[in-house]
C-alpha cells in the first residue's frame, strides 16, 4: 500500500515537472514569436539594456577579478607539483573565457536580474497592472517580456567579455605580484594560447544564459501567486530555476562545443 502511494507521489511529481517544462517551453516559444512581430517597444528595450547590462557590470567585474586571482593561485600550486608553473597564464585564460567567466557571470546575473524581473513583474501581476496593460490594448508579452529577454540575451555576452578581461587581469596581478611570474611572459603566454573559439564559445554561452535568466524572471513573475507571499515565491523560483538551467545548459553546450 505504502509502496503504491510512494510511486503515485513520485509519478505525480514527475508529471508536474514535465508539465512545468512544457509551460516554460511554450512561454519561450511565445516570447520568440512576439520578438519577431510588431509593435516593438524600443524605450523599454533601452531601459532594460541599462538595468540588466550596465548596472550588472560591477557585480560581474568583482566576481571575475577574484575568480581569476584564485584560479592563478590554485593552478600555480597544482602546477608546481610537476614543475609546470609556466602553464598558469594559459590555463587561467582558458578557464576564465570558456567556463568560469560565462558560468559565474551568468549565475551572478541570475541572482541580480532574474530576481528583480520576477519581483517587478510579479508585483505588477498582483496589483492588476498586467490586467491594466491588457485593457489598454498592450500585450504584456511584447511590452514586458520581449524587451527584457532581448536585452539580457544581448547584454550578458558583453558582460561575459568584460568579465573575461577582468578575470585574466586578476590572474595576471596575482601571477606577477604574488607568484613572481614574469609580466611580459605572462601576457604573451595568454595571448598566444587563447584561440578565437575559446572566447566565442564563452560568449555564446553568455547569450544563452542571458536568455534563460530573463525568461525565468518573466515567466515566474507573470505566473506569480496572489499577495506578497506569491511574489516572494515567484522570485525565489525564478532564481533557482535560472541557476539550475544555467548549470545544466552549460554542460550541454560544453558537450556540444568541445567533445569531438
Amino acid at each position, binding site marked *: 500500500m505504502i509502496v503504491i502511494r510512494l510511486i503515485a507521489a513520485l509519478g505525480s511529481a514527475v508529471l508536474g515537472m514535465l508539465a512545468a517544462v512544457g509551460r516554460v517551453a511554450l512561454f519561450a516559444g511565445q516570447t520568440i514569436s512576439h520578438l519577431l512581430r510588431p509593435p516593438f517597444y524600443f524605450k523599454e528595450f533601452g531601459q532594460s539594456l541599462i538595468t540588466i547590462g550596465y548596472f550588472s557590470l560591477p557585480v560581474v567585474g568583482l566576481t571575475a577579478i577574484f575568480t581569476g586571482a584564485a584560479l592563478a593561485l590554485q593552478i600555480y600550486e597544482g602546477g608546481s607539483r610537476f614543475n609546470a608553473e609556466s602553464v598558469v597564464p594559459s590555463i587561467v585564460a582558458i578557464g576564465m573565457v570558456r567556463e568560469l567567466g560565462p558560468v559565474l557571470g551568468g549565475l551572478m546575473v541570475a541572482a541580480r536580474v532574474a530576481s528583480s524581473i520576477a519581483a517587478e513583474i510579479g508585483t505588477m501581476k498582483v496589483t492588476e*497592472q498586467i490586467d*491594466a496593460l491588457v485593457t*489598454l490594448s498592450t500585450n504584456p508579452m511584447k511590452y514586458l517580456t520581449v524587451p527584457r529577454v532581448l536585452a539580457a540575451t544581448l547584454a550578458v555576452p558583453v558582460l561575459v567579455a568584460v568579465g573575461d578581461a577582468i578575470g585574466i587581469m586578476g590572474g595576471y596581478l596575482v601571477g606577477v605580484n604574488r607568484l613572481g611570474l614574469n609580466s611580459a611572459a605572462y601576457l604573451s603566454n595568454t595571448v598566444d594560447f587563447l584561440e578565437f573559439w575559446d572566447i566565442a564559445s564563452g560568449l555564446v554561452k553568455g547569450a544563452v544564459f542571458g536568455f534563460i535568466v530573463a525568461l525565468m524572471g518573466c515567466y515566474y513573475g507573470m505566473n506569480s501567486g496572489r499577495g506578497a507571499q506569491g511574489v516572494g515565491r515567484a522570485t525565489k523560483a525564478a532564481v533557482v530555476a535560472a541557476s539550475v538551467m544555467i548549470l545544466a545548459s552549460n554542460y550541454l553546450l560544453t558537450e556540444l562545443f568541445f567533445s569531438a
Partner: protein
Amino acid sequence: MITLHQVHKAFGDNHVLRGVDLTIPKGESMVIIGGSGTGKSVMLKSVLGLVAPDAGQIIVDGQDVTTVERDAFLARFGMLFQGGALFDSLTVWQNVAFRLLRGSLKKPTEEARAIAIEKLRRVGLKENVADRFPAELSGGMQKRVGLARAIAAEPEIIFFDEPTTGLDPIMSGVINDLIREIVVEMGATAMTITHDMSSVRAIADDVAMLHDGVIQWTGDVEQMDSCGDPYVEQFINGRAEGPIEAVR
C-alpha cells in the same frame, strides 16, 4: 449592449459565479451592488476577457467576447481597477496618456500630455501632480488618476470598480457627477461596482445585485427601494440582520 448568459466561474473549489444573467442596454449606467467577495470584480473582468469563464456566454454588441478581435474590442473599453493598477514605473501623466502614447491611438507627446492634464483636472487633480510617480500619491489620488486613465481615450464602454472607495465625501460627489456626465455627454455605456449607496443613487439608471453567484435582483434604480427583495432591502439599509449572512 452587453449580455451575460449563464456565466460560471470557479477558482479551485471556490465557485464564485454560478450562472450570472445580466443585460446592460447601450448608453445606460448599470450599477452592481453586493457584498465584498461575491465576485463583482470577477464578473467585470470576465467581460473584458481578463478572466476566462468556465461556462456561459458574454456578448458585446452581438459579438461573443471569446472570438472577437481583441485589439479593436479593447480599444472601445475603459476600465478603472479596484486598486487603481497604475504603472509605478511611469509618471502620472504618462499613466493617464498611456493609450495615446503608443498603438493605434498614438498622438504627439505634447498633445497627449495636454489631454492627460485636462483629464486629471476633470477628476479634481491639479497640473502639479502630472510629473509625480504614483507611489508619491495618496490612495484616493491614485484612484482618481486611474479614473482619468480610464476615460482618457474617450471609450464607448466604461467599467468602474469601486470608484469612490477611499475618497472623502466631497471627492466622492465630484466623481459621481463625473461618471454621470460621461454617460450622459459621451453616451457611454457604464458598469459600476460600488458599496456606496449615495453613489448608487447618483449614477445608476439600473441596479443589479449579485449574491451567491447569481444576479439576485435587477431593475430600475427608482424601483430599488420598493422592490420587496429581502436581500436588496438588507443591503441598501445596511442591516446586520437578514437573509445575507454577516460571516461569509
